[in-house]
């Protein structure tokens, strides 16, 4: 964890040095700041040695092309993890009918445990944690398969409790190794567990929990609050994942209530509820943009702006699609998009 923080700081420093070198070259080209040969002879080896030292100590990216490759490696790691998950599932289903129940259970329990050992093994041998992240996805998927298939083998009645176990494992993996994908998976599992469990307290069948989207709305809000309340000094990217999952849950449930007010807990007519949540949806998206700008959270601003625009377009469809000629509808939508662009540009200038 301390290593993750040190690595992040090293990467930030390397980025600063790279920008400094570029800017210095530009100032030199424009004859604004020209270093003497003696100064240059001191500076250049210093920059090279510092960058090389950082790269050696923390395995960070010291050039733009390295950064792009790293992004590619992260994508390959995630895709590879998903492909391996599919392989594990299909491999098990190919042979499980040939195994007695005891062997099935042993394999199901052993697979995620072996995966954990493999994660620890690889994490000790690489600083970038690409392979560790890939195996982490497989461990999580193996555990999902573990409980799901146990349920099938022993004909168990489905409960939301499995989501709690899956969420707990995913969060432990995320915080132990500083991995974002397991964190997102864990938060989604806990959101389902929370919403479905509270929903079942009403006496209804838990799998219909999205029939009352307000519980997802509450769960999403709790996740956003968790991202703010839990200190993340060592995993600086984690609050962003909390905000992303929380906001997506909030927006999805608001959109559902917007169109189906009859699914609300509120004791009002469906039409009143729908209007209420339409106002709340726009207010929530606007508040995300405003808070994102104030707190300098680019992801929140982008998500809020995109959602605000989508909400606006949905509203236009509700209002005009039926009676307006289609060309006029799309013309107005295009014109409003231009208006929004101008508004966002002005906002950007003001923020700058």
């Amino acid at each position, binding site marked *: 964890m301390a290593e993750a923080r040190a690595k992040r700081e090293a990467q930030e420093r390397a980025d600063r040095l790279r920008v400094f070198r570029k800017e210095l070259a530009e100032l030199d080209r424009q004859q604004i700041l020209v270093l003497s040969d003696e100064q240059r002879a001191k500076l250049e080896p210093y920059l090279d040695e510092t960058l090389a030292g950082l790269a050696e100590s923390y395995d960070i990216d010291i050039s733009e092309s390295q950064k792009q490759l790293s992004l590619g490696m992260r994508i390959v790691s995630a895709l590879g993890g998903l492909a391996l998950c599919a392989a594990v599932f299909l491999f098990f289903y190919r042979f499980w*009918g*040939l195994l007695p129940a005891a062997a099935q259970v042993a394999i199901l329990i052993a697979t995620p445990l072996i995966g*954990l050992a493999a994660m620890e093994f690889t994490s000790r041998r690489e600083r970038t944690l690409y392979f560790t992240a890939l195996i982490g996805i497989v461990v999580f998927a193996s555990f999902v398969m573990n409980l799901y298939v*146990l349920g*099938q*083998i022993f*004909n168990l009645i489905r409960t939301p409790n499995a989501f709690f176990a899956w969420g707990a*494992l995913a969060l432990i*993996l995320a915080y132990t190794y500083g991995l974002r994908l397991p964190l997102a998976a864990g938060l989604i599992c806990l959101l389902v567990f929370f919403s479905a469990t509270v929903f079942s307290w009403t006496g209804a069948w838990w799998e219909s929990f999205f029939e009352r989207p307000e519980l997802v709305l509450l769960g999403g809000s709790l996740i956003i609050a968790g991202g703010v309340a839990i200190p993340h000094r060592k995993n600086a990217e984690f609050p962003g994942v909390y905000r992303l999952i929380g906001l997506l849950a909030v927006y999805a449930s608001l959109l559902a209530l917007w169109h189906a007010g009859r699914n609300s807990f509120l004791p009002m007519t469906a039409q009143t509820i729908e209007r209420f949540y339409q106002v709340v949806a726009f207010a929530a998206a606007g508040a995300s943009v405003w808070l994102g700008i104030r707190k300098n959270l680019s992801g929140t601003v982008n998500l809020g702006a995109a959602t605000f625009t989508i909400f606006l377009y949905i509203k236009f469809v509700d209002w005009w699609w039926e009676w307006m000629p289609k060309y006029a509808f799309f013309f107005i939508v295009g014109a409003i998009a231009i208006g929004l662009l101008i508004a966002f540009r002005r906002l950007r200038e003001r923020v700058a």
Partner: protein
Amino acid sequence: MRRNGLLFAAAVILIANAFVLVGVARNRSGHPQQTIQLTERELPMNYRGNEDTGISLRLQWGQRSFSRGGYPLLDQAKLESLGFDCKAALRDTKRQPLDRPAFLVLELNGSTWQSWLKSAEETKTVPDSVKMAQSKIFVVDAAKTPEPLLAKYTDRKMYLVTRGVVRLFVNTWDAKVQNPRLESSISELLPGTIHVPLPLSNLMANRSANTPAVDFHYTVTLAYGSRFEPWVVKVE
């Protein structure tokens, strides 16, 4: 720190599995609460892909398609006893009542099946092939808890108490109906699929490729434990 995380992760995996396996052991300990023999009509084999070697059966129950209003035995009083607010559902027909879990009584080869068969023969709308494959189990009663059902339906060869999910609709679209009408249905039985373990599954897995599915007859004895979770004890 990392070592602790690893231990916690392993503990979550082991505790979750222990929780499941203890539940299974508790369900199956002692004498089975109920045992019933069903055939391929009630437990047809689930479709399995080329790369799936597991065998599972689907618990299929008869739909009372000849009677209006879904399940007449699940009347308003019964539905209210299951927790449905029928008055609110009729008052605000746009607000769909939520599915509710319940304990259900399945009747095997009883009067409900006979009346279904009689109706089918009278109306002549059901092909013979459908009649031959029709499940002989029908839902005849429901309750929030199993005890009253187990006390009322004591013939264990004919009745099976199991879990399921009850759905309630308010019919407002039927032009023949002046007022909104309650209609109930069973959305699923829990569990809906039953895994056949080795060595019992060998009999089914070895089914000759020359035997068409319609000519493949078998009898499965199911046992239900204290948690109303079944397991296969015999395949013939």
